[in-house]
């Protein structure tokens, strides 16, 4: 299968500290891959590199066959960021938030056309939120907001969907429901999904393959191969942070 993501020997240092070191992996088309690792282990930075927002110091990255920094806003990648505390009174309905995902494609000095509005409704329908299209985003539950943000990522019809902690701040029921949604999206389309999460059991149970990252890659493979010692090693303080004798 052709690779959607190719990461080869990627390294990054910031403020004299290693953030990523010799990270290499490939993700094939139509895979659902989970990334686990401790806080500060470089998970979000890895996603930023894949999105072209951060440039690595070393190594080579190809996303959908291109350097992610060359895509110039028209890249076929959907991204769902970590949940954050936005203004609950912000004047945006669910459909407005999804429409924002179209703005990069619509371009400057142009307003959304009828086909853009149709794509918004279709994206909301894909995540089961069509009937909430006119609800203010601040009035939706955490799980519903995450579905809207997934619809925002899907509205540009990407081939790759990247999610950073999509289940953070969502209750257990909402968490299961979100994972089921991702599996359905993958089953119903050619979508490749890369998801970062703290929830090891969730990632183990529902993804095709797992990456264990703590600045360097400790494991890459299907859930069956992921043993408790590997998890312990991944979450153990990185040698650079270990107290010196």
């Amino acid at each position, binding site marked *: 299968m052709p690779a959607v993501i190719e990461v080869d020997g990627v390294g990054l240092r910031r403020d004299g500290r290693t953030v990523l070191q010799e990270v290499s992996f490939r993700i094939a088309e139509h895979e659902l891959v989970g990334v686990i690792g401790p806080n500060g282990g470089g998970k979000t930075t890895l996603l930023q590199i894949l999105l072209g927002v951060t440039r690595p110091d070393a190594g080579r990255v190809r996303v959908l066959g291109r350097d992610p920094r060359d895509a110039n806003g028209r890249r076929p990648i959907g991204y769902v*960021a970590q949940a*954050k505390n936005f*203004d609950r009174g912000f004047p*945006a309905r669910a459909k407005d938030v999804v429409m924002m995902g179209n703005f990069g494609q619509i371009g*400057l000095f142009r307003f959304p056309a009828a086909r853009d509005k149709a794509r918004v409704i279709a994206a909301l329908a894909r995540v089961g939120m069509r009937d909430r299209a006119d609800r203010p985003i601040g009035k939706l539950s955490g799980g519903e907001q995450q579905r809207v943000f997934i619809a925002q990522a899907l509205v540009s019809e990407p081939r790759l969907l990247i999610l950073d902690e999509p289940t953070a701040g969502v209750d257990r029921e909402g968490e299961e429901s979100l994972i089921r949604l991702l599996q359905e999206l993958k089953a119903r389309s050619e979508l490749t999904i890369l998801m970062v999460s703290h929830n090891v059991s969730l990632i183990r149970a529902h993804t095709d393959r797992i990456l264990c990252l703590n600045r360097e890659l400790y494991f890459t493979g299907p859930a069956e191969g992921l043993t408790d010692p590997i998890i312990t090693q991944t979450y153990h303080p990185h040698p650079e942070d270990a107290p010196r004798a």
Partner: protein
Amino acid sequence: MLDRLGEMLSLGFMQRAFLGGIMVGATCAFLSVFVVLRRMAFVTQGVGHAAFGGVALAVLLGLSPSWVGASFAVATALAIGTVSRRRRVTEDVSIGIFLAVAMALGILFLGLKKGSTTNLFGYLFGSILSILPGELPWMVGATALVFVLLLAFVKELYFFAFDEEMARVNGLPVDALYFGLLVVLAVTVVVSMKLVGVILVTALLIIPGATAKLITTNFGALITLSVAAGVAGVVAGLTGAYLLDISPGASIVLVLFGLFLVSFLTAGRRT
């Protein structure tokens, strides 16, 4: 009463005040939507104080207060943006520093000026009734340009105000939008100085947007209501100032506050 209103509208200086005031009020109110949504109220204050420093420099050197004030305000706005974007100093701290420095320079320049500095009061507290015929095209042109720019980038600014990180990932020129907004803010502050003065200009750049945000959750309606509140504040404030013989700048701000209070109390009742 009607006689007095008729008399007011027949006066050349009042006609210029209404025309200039409506243009400035509408533009400030449009900009206030992004000031409120992006939480830039403190930036507005910093840029206003910077404009004061520039006006004081112009008075000292005998140059045009508008041009020097605008240059000073734009330079300060860009400095605030550059320092806070480097992330070593937060935006509020950066504004606090530049605001104090601009005021200190303003006081220093005024101290160096020999003779009277009374014409500075017009820039501090506004002098909309003294708009000269030659100033009106400049005021109308500058506000019209800002209005058109905001309209041209309205969807990008909306996304930027909601979620800067996602706007960047979606390919929007986030840094250009941020610095562009700062420059537009600085230019608008300088143009509005004539209306209400640097001390009260923050009211025009904050209250209309804050008032409209209490009433609606629809972005298009928010812009319309904010512009309507800005224009209503200027028209009612100027009329009240003429009829009651009070300061137009203060009158405009108090009318705007009245509108805010009504929407705050009715919004509180709705929730």
